[in-house]
């Protein structure tokens, strides 16, 4: 096969396969070996990007937003800061507290890293570049993502530290809660595509991105993803004023670094998933024929979402735990259920009546939004009334006490 500049991925794969088969390997063994090599390369690149490049990017962005310079000493623009940090973390002493459960304590950062890296197996980077095209991709993303919650609980419990345990409890309450609207809202792209494969979902967006058809669902997905990530405004799992550092209080050196790197990688992960599921992934003009172009489109979309998430992170105050759970159970979950019902009916309506698909969905979503705002208005008025009568009663009582 000739080298095609626009599709280097297929070319590299076929070249390596031919090479291995040329060495006398059976084709199935060669394919398995290639899959293994692909897995190693993808995992290492992701960990490097998450641990080295994105810590730098995040610090630079936060510095910009807070009117500082950020890292600027190590290398051009401080670009090698991540490498310096990694070296420093590697040479720090590995302290295991005396009361800790050693096996679980060491296992926790590994599980967290594995869960975050594992999600990327089904993310389609380009039409011809995807780890593996699972037909249950969305379920895989959710289930592998939940392993991270387990890792955090293990870290908090094994530390035998009260702050770590409380932080882990909060994290589990938060992650378990926000998984519900996330799972429910993922039904929407599944309905549109008729498949749970992420690759098929991206291909289904060739004419219209799903964010246009289901803006409410996209917004809920992004919000719940940020909550799963545990970043501001939902970062109370490591509320430093209350919990020291949350679940990773007792961790030092590179073990702590693993939590840190996987958090940054998770930030990139949710951006990539939002880009793939709702923003059309690698779809764009000319991407079908030129996979390299598709890769660039995908990266641009991911970066835009990542920038948005970072901007949100540095502009929002932290919410309280009861507010956080209220937002999830009393707002996002009913809204996600309503969004799925409305979308299911609207899509069938559009098919049955030959109306514009986009128009029907936009009207349905706007209607849903108006209903939601109305419900919020009624509820806010109810709460305010209750508060005012309470205040009046208190004032009357203090007056009578003064008499």
């Amino acid at each position, binding site marked *: 096969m000739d080298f095609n500049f626009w599709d280097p991925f297929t070319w590299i794969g076929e070249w390596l396969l031919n090479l291995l088969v040329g060495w006398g390997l059976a084709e199935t063994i060669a394919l398995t070996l290639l*899959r293994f090599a*692909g*897995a190693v390369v993808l*995992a290492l690149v992701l960990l490097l990007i998450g641990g080295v490049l994105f810590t730098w990017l995040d610090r630079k962005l936060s510095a910009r937003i807070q009117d500082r310079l950020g890292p600027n000493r190590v290398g051009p623009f401080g670009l090698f800061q991540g490498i310096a940090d990694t070296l420093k973390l*590697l*040479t*720090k*002493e590995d*302290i295991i*507290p*005396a*009361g800790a459960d050693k096996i679980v304590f060491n296992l926790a*950062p*590994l599980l967290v890293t*594995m869960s975050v*890296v*594992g999600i990327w197996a089904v993310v389609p980077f380009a039409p011809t570049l995807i*780890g*593996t095209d*699972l*037909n249950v991709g969305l*379920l895989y993303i959710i289930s*592998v993502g939940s392993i991270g919650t387990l890792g955090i609980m293990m870290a908090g*419990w094994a*530390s*035998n530290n*009260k*702050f770590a345990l409380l932080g882990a*409890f909060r994290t*589990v*309450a938060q992650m*378990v*809660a926000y*998984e*519900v609207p996330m*799972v*429910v809202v993922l*039904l929407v792209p599944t309905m549109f595509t*008729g*498949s*749970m494969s992420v690759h098929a979902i991206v291909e289904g967006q060739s004419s219209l991105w799903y964010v246009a058809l289901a803006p409410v669902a996209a917004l809920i997905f992004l919000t719940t993803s940020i909550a799963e990530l545990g970043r501001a405004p939902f970062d109370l799992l490591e509320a430093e004023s209350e919990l*020291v550092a949350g679940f990773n*209080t*007792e961790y030092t*050196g*590179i*073990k702590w*670094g*693993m939590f840190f790197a996987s958090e940054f990688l998770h930030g990139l992960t949710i951006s990539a998933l939002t880009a793939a599921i709702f923003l059309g992934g690698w779809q764009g003009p000319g991407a079908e024929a030129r996979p390299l172009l598709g890769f660039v489109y995908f990266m641009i979309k991911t970066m835009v979402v990542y920038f948005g998430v970072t901007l949100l992170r540095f502009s929002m105050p932290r919410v309280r735990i*009861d507010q956080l*759970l*209220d937002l999830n*159970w*009393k707002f996002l*979950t*009913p809204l996600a259920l309503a969004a799925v*019902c409305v979308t*299911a*009916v609207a899509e*069938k309506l559009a098919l049955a009546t030959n109306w514009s698909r986009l128009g029907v969905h936009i009207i349905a979503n706007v209607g849903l939004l108006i209903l939601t705002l109305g419900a919020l208005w009624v509820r806010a008025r109810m709460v305010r009334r209750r508060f005012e009568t309470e205040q009046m009663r208190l004032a009357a009582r203090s007056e009578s006490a003064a008499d």
Partner: protein
Amino acid sequence: MHDQWTFIAFFLPVGFLAAAVAIIAGRLLGPRKPNPIKQSTYECGIETVGEAWVQFRIQYYIFALIFVIFDVEAVFLFPWAVAYNKLQLYMVLEGVLFILILAVGLFYAWRKGALEWS
């Protein structure tokens, strides 16, 4: 189908081992000078009182129950969503009815005060 999962079978252990290698390297490269004070559990600089493995009042076990209900619901709904394009309108409405019944359950839990964090 089988081929799709071989990649996962490689990928997850590689992710796990990559982190393990980093941690072992940190073990080898870093100094090791343990002493009792350094290894004591951190408690804001004061002496550690007791251990953390005591019975906590877990405030969210009802949340956890509701979570289980809704997660199972979602598992039931995914086949419905995958088959959506082949379904008649009344089948879609049946799915919606299923969601509404669960929504009623959520509102019941809400009215009963199960969704309050206290």
